[in-house]
C-alpha cells in the first residue's frame, strides 16, 4: 500500500532524526526540511517556513475528503485502542452552546472504527486559556478558545499547532481578511477565527443621552451628572486604558518577543493627563474602576441599580444591559472623544478576536484540527458562527454569516465597525510582559487620586511601566 510505505519512510526518517538529536550532534543540522518526494507526507523540524497559504481551498464537505479525514482520525485512534478522548476549553458562558456543536461534530464524523469523546469545560476562560496551555501543555485542552493577544506567546512557547493547509485554505476562503491575519504569526497560520468582538465600544442608555451627547466624554459625564447617573470606563484595567496611549500616538508594538511601549515620552504624558482629566469627575458622573469584582459584574450591577447610564464594554455584556434597561433603550456607538492636549480626540481602542487553537501536544492532532475547524466554520448545512451569533450574540468573522440580514443590522456590529478605524490589533501590539506590568494599577492610582497627580509623578510611574514592559 502506497500510504503505508510512505508512513514507513517517514517513521525511519523520524527515528534517524531522533537518534541524531539524542546523540547531541544536532548542533550543525540547521532546521533542514526533509521531504519524501511523494509530497503528501513530509517530515520536518518544528516550524517549517512554507506557509502555503496559496494552496487551493479543497471542498471539505466532499465525500472523498470526508473519507480521508475519517481515515486519519481512525489512524490516530489506533494508538489508544479506537477511543479518542479530548478536552475543549471554552468560555463558561458559551459552554452549553459549544456542547451542542460538539454533538454535531461527533455525528458528522461518526465511524465504526473509533469512538470520539470530547469533554468541554468552562473552567478555563478565554482570557486565561493561552497562559494555562503554556504553563503545562500536556495538561492543557486539545482544542481551546482564547483571545488573539495570547497567540504570540503560545507560538513562542511552541505550544500551539500549525493549522494544516487543508483547513487553512478553507479558513482563508470563508473568513474576513483581518480575522485570518490575526490567526497567523509571521505568515504561518496557528489558529481558527471565531468571533470579531473581543474589543470594546460604548453602550449607552438612549433615554439619557442623545446622539449628540455621545460625541465626547465630557458632554456625556455632564449629562449623566444632571441625571444623577454615571458613565463607566475602567481606567483601572490595562486592556481598557491602553486606548489612551494609542490615542496619544504612542508606539505600542510586540514583535519577535520584544515589547515596545513609548510611554515615557511627551505623548505618554498627554495620555496619562487625559486619563487624569476623566478621573477628576470620579463620584461626579464618572466611575473609573471596577475594584475587585471585575468590569462585567460592575457594569451589570450599575445598570441594574440604575446608577450607570453608559459604559465602555464589549458585546458580552449586551444581554445583561438589555435586561437591565430594556432592549429598546440600549444604544451602541463608537467610543466618544476625549480631551487631550486641549483638543477633543477620538479615543482609540483594542480590537481583538476570539480564536480557536489546537494544542501542539495533542495526541489527536487531526481530530483536534477537524473539531477546531468545525467550531470555527461548520459545514455547508451548519454555519456555526451564524448559530453562535443567534444563540450567544457574538459577532462572526465568517463571510457568509456576515451577509445575514440580522447580523448586518446588529447595533453592536455597527458600533464595532465604526470603531474599527481606531481599533488596534492586540496580537501585534502587546505580549505577555505588557499584561504582567501594572498598567492596570497605574490607571487605578489615577482614579483613586481623582486625577490629582503631578506631572513629574506621572512621568516616574510611566517610566516604571516601560521598564516593566520592555525589561
Amino acid at each position, binding site marked *: 500500500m502506497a*500510504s503505508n510505505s510512505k508512513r514507513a519512510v517517514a517513521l525511519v526518517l523520524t527515528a534517524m*532524526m*531522533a537518534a541524531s*538529536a539524542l546523540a*547531541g550532534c*544536532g*548542533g*550543525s543540522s540547521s*532546521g533542514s526540511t526533509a521531504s519524501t518526494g511523494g509530497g*503528501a*507526507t513530509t*517530515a*520536518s*523540524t*518544528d516550524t517549517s517556513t512554507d506557509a502555503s497559504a496559496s494552496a487551493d481551498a479543497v471542498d471539505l464537505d466532499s465525500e472523498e475528503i470526508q473519507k*480521508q*479525514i475519517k*481515515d*486519519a482520525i481512525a489512524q490516530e485512534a489506533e494508538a489508544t485502542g479506537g477511543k479518542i478522548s479530548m478536552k475543549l476549553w471554552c468560555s463558561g458562558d458559551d459552554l452549553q452552546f459549544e456542547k451542542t456543536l460538539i454533538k454535531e461534530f461527533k455525528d458528522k464524523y461518526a465511524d465504526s472504527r473509533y469512538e470520539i469523546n470530547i469533554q468541554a469545560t468552562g473552567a478555563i476562560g478565554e482570557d486565561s486559556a493561552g497562559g494555562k496551555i*503554556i*504553563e*503545562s*501543555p500536556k495538561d492543557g485542552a486539545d482544542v481551546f478558545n482564547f483571545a488573539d493577544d495570547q497567540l504570540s506567546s503560545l507560538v*513562542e*512557547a*511552541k*505550544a500551539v*499547532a*500549525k493549522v*494544516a*493547509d*487543508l483547513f487553512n485554505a478553507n479558513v482563508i476562503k470563508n473568513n474576513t481578511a483581518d480575522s485570518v491575519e490575526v490567526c497567523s504569526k509571521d505568515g504561518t497560520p496557528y489558529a481558527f477565527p471565531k468571533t470579531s468582538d473581543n474589543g470594546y465600544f460604548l453602550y449607552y442608555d438612549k433615554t439619557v443621552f442623545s446622539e449628540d451627547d455621545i460625541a465626547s466624554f465630557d458632554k456625556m459625564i455632564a449629562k449623566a451628572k444632571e441625571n444623577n447617573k454615571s458613565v463607566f470606563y475602567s481606567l483601572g484595567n490595562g486592556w481598557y486604558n491602553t486606548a489612551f496611549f494609542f490615542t496619544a500616538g504612542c508606539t505600542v508594538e510586540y514583535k519577535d518577543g520584544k515589547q515596545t511601549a513609548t510611554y515615557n515620552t511627551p505623548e505618554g504624558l498627554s495620555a496619562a493627563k487625559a486619563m487624569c482629566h476623566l478621573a477628576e469627575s*470620579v*463620584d461626579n458622573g464618572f*466611575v473609573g*474602576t471596577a*475594584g*475587585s*469584582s471585575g468590569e462585567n459584574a460592575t457594569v451589570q*450591577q450599575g445598570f441594574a441599580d440604575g*446608577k450607570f447610564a453608559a459604559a465602555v464594554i464589549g458585546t458580552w455584556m449586551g444581554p445583561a444591559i438589555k435586561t437591565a434597561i430594556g432592549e429598546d433603550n440600549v444604544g451602541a456607538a463608537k467610543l466618544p472623544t476625549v480631551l487631550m492636549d486641549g483638543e477633543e480626540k477620538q479615543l482609540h481602542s483594542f480590537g481583538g478576536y476570539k480564536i480557536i487553537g489546537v494544542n*501542539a*501536544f495533542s495526541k489527536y*492532532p*487531526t481530530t483536534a*484540527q477537524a473539531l477546531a475547524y468545525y467550531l470555527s466554520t461548520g459545514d455547508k448545512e451548519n454555519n456555526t458562527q451564524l448559530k453562535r451569533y443567534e444563540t450567544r450574540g457574538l459577532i462572526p468573522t465568517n463571510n457568509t454569516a456576515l451577509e445575514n440580514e440580522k447580523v448586518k443590522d446588529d447595533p453592536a456590529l455597527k458600533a464595532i465597525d465604526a470603531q474599527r478605524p481606531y481599533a488596534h490589533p492586540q496580537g501585534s501590539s502587546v505580549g505577555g510582559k505588557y499584561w*504582567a*506590568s*501594572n*498598567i*492596570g494599577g497605574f490607571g*487605578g*492610582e489615577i482614579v*483613586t487620586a481623582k486625577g490629582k497627580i503631578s506631572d513629574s509623578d506621572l512621568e516616574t*510611574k*510611566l517610566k*516604571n*511601566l516601560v*521598564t*516593566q514592559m520592555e525589561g
Partner: protein
Amino acid sequence: MDYLDYVQMTKGQRAAYKIKSFFTGIPGAIGNLFRIIAYYIKKFFVFVGTGIKNYAQRFAQGDIGTKLSFIIMGAGNVFHKQIGKGIIFLATEIAYFYFMAVFGMNYLSKLYSVGVQLDDAGTMADGVIGSQRAITTTNLLGVPTISNRDTLDNSNQVLLYSVLTMIITIAFFAVYIANTKSAFATQQTIKAGKKPIGFIAEMKTFLDERFHVTLLTLPVLLLMLFTVLPIIFTIFMAFTNYDKEHQPPGSLYRWVGFQNFADIFYSNPMKSETFGKILVWTLVWAVFATFTNYIFGIILALLINKKGIKAKGFWRTMFVVTAAVPQFVTLLLMRLLLGTNTGINGMLGTSFPFLDDFMWARVVVIIVNMWVGIPYTMLISSGLLMNIPEDLYESARIDGANAFQQFTKITFPYIFFVTTPYLITTFVGNINNFNVIFFLTGGGPSPSNYYQAGQTDLLVTWLYKLTVNSSDFNLASVIGILVFIICALGSLITFNMSKASKNEEEFS
C-alpha cells in the same frame, strides 16, 4: 542584668523588658544562627570523620564474612547464619543497582547536559537540564504532529527524578553502612560466645525496643516523598531560569547560579524594590495582625467572663460561630461587602475606596483580620481565665488591689506567660497568612512600580502569584527560601528569649 534585677521588676516592666529584648535580640540571633550553622557543620565533619574511621576499623578487624559484606551486602549476615537478614540486605543491593542502571543514571547524567533545546537553529546551550529536539511530522492531510512527543526530555522530570535518585542513593548508603555494622556486630557477638539474634526475634523488637521504627517508618517515608523531595526540588529551581519563557517541555530551562538571588537583592531594580517593600509590609502586617488580635481578644474574653455578666455561653457562641464559618467564605463576602461599588457602598450609595486605596486597604485588611481572629484569641483566653486560681485574686483584694491592678498584676501576666508560645506561632502564622490577603484584596491595589504584586501582598501571596499567575517558578522559589530564613530567624530569637526567662516559673 541578672536574674535578681529581673524578679524585682513589676509585671508591666517585665513585659516591656521582654519586648525590648526581642528587638535587641535580633543581632544576637543572627549571630547565633551562624554559630549554630557552624556547630552543625563541625558536627557533620566529626560525624563523617568518625564514620570513616569506624568503617576502616570494621574492615580491618572483620572476618571473611564481614569483609565480603563490604562488597556483597548481607554476605556477613549469611556467613554468620542470619539468613533472613542477609537476604534482605542483598535484595536491597540488587534492587538499588538495578534501579540505577535502568533509571537513576540516565537522569543524573542529564542533570547538567550540553543539551539541544527545542530550537530551530539547533544552538547548543550550556547547563540545560535535559536534552531534546521535537520532531514534527505531517500526516496525509498535512496536519503536523510531534512524533517523538512521549520521548522528549522534560527539565522538570529530569530534575525531579535526579533528586529522587539522590535521596534513594543516600538511603541506600545508610543501609549499606548498617549492613557492615550488622555484619561486624554479629561477628563480635559470636566471638563473645553468644548466639546471634534470630530473624523472628529481631522482627519482634519492632514491637518493643524498636517500636519507634514501626511507628515512624510510614509517616517519614511519605514525608520524604511528598514534602522533603518537593522542597529540595523547589530549592533547586531557585538556581534555574524556570520562568514563563522557559516552560518545559516546549522550552527547557537551565542552571543560572545565584542570578535570581542577585535579581531580588540588587541587580533587578524592579524586583528588588518590590521585594523590599513587600518584606517591610509583611513584617508590619505580622506585628499588627498578631498584637491587635491578641490584645482585643483578651479584652473581649474579660468582658464576657466578667462577674455578673449573664448568658456567657450565648456571647461566646455568637463569636465562635463567626470563627467557624470557613475563612474563604467570610473573606470573599467581605471583599464584596467592602467593594467600591458594591455591598456597603452599594447600600449607602457611596463609593468609598475601602480596598482600592492602598492606605485604606492596609488598614482594612488589619481590621478584617481582627474580625477573623479575635474570636480565636477570645476562646483561648476564656479557657485560661477560668484556670487562674481564684485565691490569687482573693489575696490581691485583701491587699487592696483594684480591678485594674488585678488585671495588670495577675490576669495579664498569667495569660501572657501561658500564651507566649501561642503568640510566636501566631506571629509566624501571620507572616504566612495567605487567606486574609488573597481572598480579601487579592494583594491589590497594584501600583506601577511593583513586580507582579500589589501593596497589600505579603511574601507568601507574592510567591503564590509568581507561581500561579506569572509562572516565575524560579523567583517564587527564591521567595520561599527567604520566607523560610525569616521564620527560622524569628523562631530562633524567641527561642533564645524563652531560654533567657525560663527561670520565671511562678505559674507553672
